[in-house]
């Protein structure tokens, strides 16, 4: 039922080669293209707007949910609302991802609004990959919104990757953390051509003992522009660490605007930001191992974004 373009995109964004094990929901060109639920994970379509509700029963362990999206037809523009209700003590892996194959002349756009409601002591690992391809003039646009509402002791690990082919992206991530909740974010971003990427984080730590560790690594090449903004608010005794590390190349432009906001004497907030070109000595070292300058550059970037 899936054509080869869709299959290829699924491999890129969700590492899916065959039908995945566990719960899944495929969305292809604005329509549902397959769904599976399990005894513990239910998926239902929303009735008032496009999107799904994913309900994970309390105590569910070692299960996964895949919800990849493929846009293969040129000119589709959609906003999809997906809500995840993760029960107490559950521990699951959620793989989202969107791939756009645009060979036409119209813009293709997918704006996924993902809300996560994490129950007490639940854990999720959320993996989101974005990918674009196709040689049409139509732009490939992805504007993901991620909202995390974390109850006491909830832990979320977010891995967000966008390495290739997305022309314009506005990534918005908002999180609110209760007591002892912990959020870990690893973002990897690469832009090239005349791409534009905005990545904006607002994390509020409202409960005692909550913590966030947010690390964004990016490479800006050619004439692309990146804008990184993070705001970490400490309203209780909490620990926040954000790090933005960018390699800038060619004629690229990178802005980084970190903001820390402490409303409690025991809030510990740290931000580190670095923007710079590839260190000359790294290139030199790899060239002494026999690589050309551009091969050395590729190795350094691939390692940095891994």
């Amino acid at each position, binding site marked *: 039922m899936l054509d080869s373009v869709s299959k290829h995109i699924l491999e890129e964004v969700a590492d899916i080669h065959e039908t995945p094990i566990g719960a899944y929901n495929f969305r292809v060109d604005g329509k549902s293209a397959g769904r599976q639920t399990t005894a513990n994970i239910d998926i239902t379509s929303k009735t008032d707007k496009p999107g799904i509700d994913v309900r994970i029963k309390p105590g569910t362990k070692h299960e996964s949910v895949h919800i990849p999206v493929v846009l293969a037809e040129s000119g589709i523009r959609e906003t999809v609302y997906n809500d995840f209700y993760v029960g107490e003590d559950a521990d699951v892996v959620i793989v989202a991802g969107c791939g756009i194959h645009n060979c036409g002349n119209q813009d293709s756009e997918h704006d996924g609004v993902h809300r996560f409601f994490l129950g007490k002591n639940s854990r999720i690992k959320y993996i989101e990959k974005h990918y674009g391809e196709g040689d049409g003039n139509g732009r490939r646009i992805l504007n993901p919104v991620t909202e995390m509402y974390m109850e006491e002791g909830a832990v979320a690990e977010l891995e967000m990757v966008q390495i290739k082919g997305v022309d314009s992206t506005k990534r918005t991530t908002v999180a609110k953390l209760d007591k002892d909740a912990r959020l870990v974010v690893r973002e990897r971003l690469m832009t090239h051509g005349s791409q534009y990427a905005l990545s904006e984080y607002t994390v509020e730590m409202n409960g005692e003992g909550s913590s966030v560790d947010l690390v964004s*690594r990016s490479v800006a090449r050619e004439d692309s522009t990146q804008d990184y903004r993070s705001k970490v608010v400490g309203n209780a005794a909490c620990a926040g660490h954000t790090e933005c*590390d960018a390699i800038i190349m060619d004629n690229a432009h990178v802005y980084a605007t970190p903001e820390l906001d402490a409303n409690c004497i025991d809030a510990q907030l740290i931000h580190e930001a670095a923007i710079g070109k590839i*260190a000359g*000595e*790294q290139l*030199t*070292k*790899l*060239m*002494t*191992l*026999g*690589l*050309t*300058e551009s091969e050395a550059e590729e*190795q*350094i970037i*691939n*390692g*940095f*974004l*891994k």
Partner: protein
Amino acid sequence: MLELKNVTFEAADENGGSKIITRDLSMTVGDNKFVVITGPNGSGKSTLARLIMGINQPTGGQILFNGRDITHASITERANLGISFAFQQPVRFKGLKVIDLLRIASKKELTVSEACTYLASVGLCAKDYINREVNASLSGGELKRIEIAMILARGSLLSIFDEPEAGIDLWSFSNLISVFETMRENIHGSILIISHQERILNIADEIVVIDCGSIREQGPKDEILPHILGTAAARIMCDGGAKISRKGGAANA
């Protein structure tokens, strides 16, 4: 193997002028030879190694490698002709792992067990290191050993080591010496080591003493070593010509 003819390197100095760092330097490293370069801090030893590798380009003179003029060849060309260089201060990489670097060095899909052999030869417990990132989390001594392991993985005709002993603990020192001895037997290539260590000088075929960017003396070990040991306390200081900035101790990593 390697021949330097009247090599000169002049670089810009801090005051907008220029200074000669390597002056009219000529030397050869024969096939299968083990040559050790020594000399005071700031005398131009590392600069000489960088000139041979192509990291610095000479402003005068000629460099020949197996009869071929490589004076203006790029670093990559020289590497692929068979020159390797372990830096005095190894480079750190965010994201690249030890195994990645060993694979690049060996130019093949090195298996984990092959990679482990190289790490074991430099005294690193392989399984703890193979997947470590070569970043700021490694200690100076660990980094230095990985740098040497990369040269082993390359197995080049000419291997240059810049103060390989720096930062390596005493206990491992004899192992390091045996690494060089085995390397010499296995590769049938030449080894050029920059060192201040008597034990390394001791296993050399030839010793070259550099001072103020030129060769003060060179010759077979048995001839040179007694001189050096005799004059070690009374280092010749430079005046005029090359301006030498003296950095920390001999074993600074």
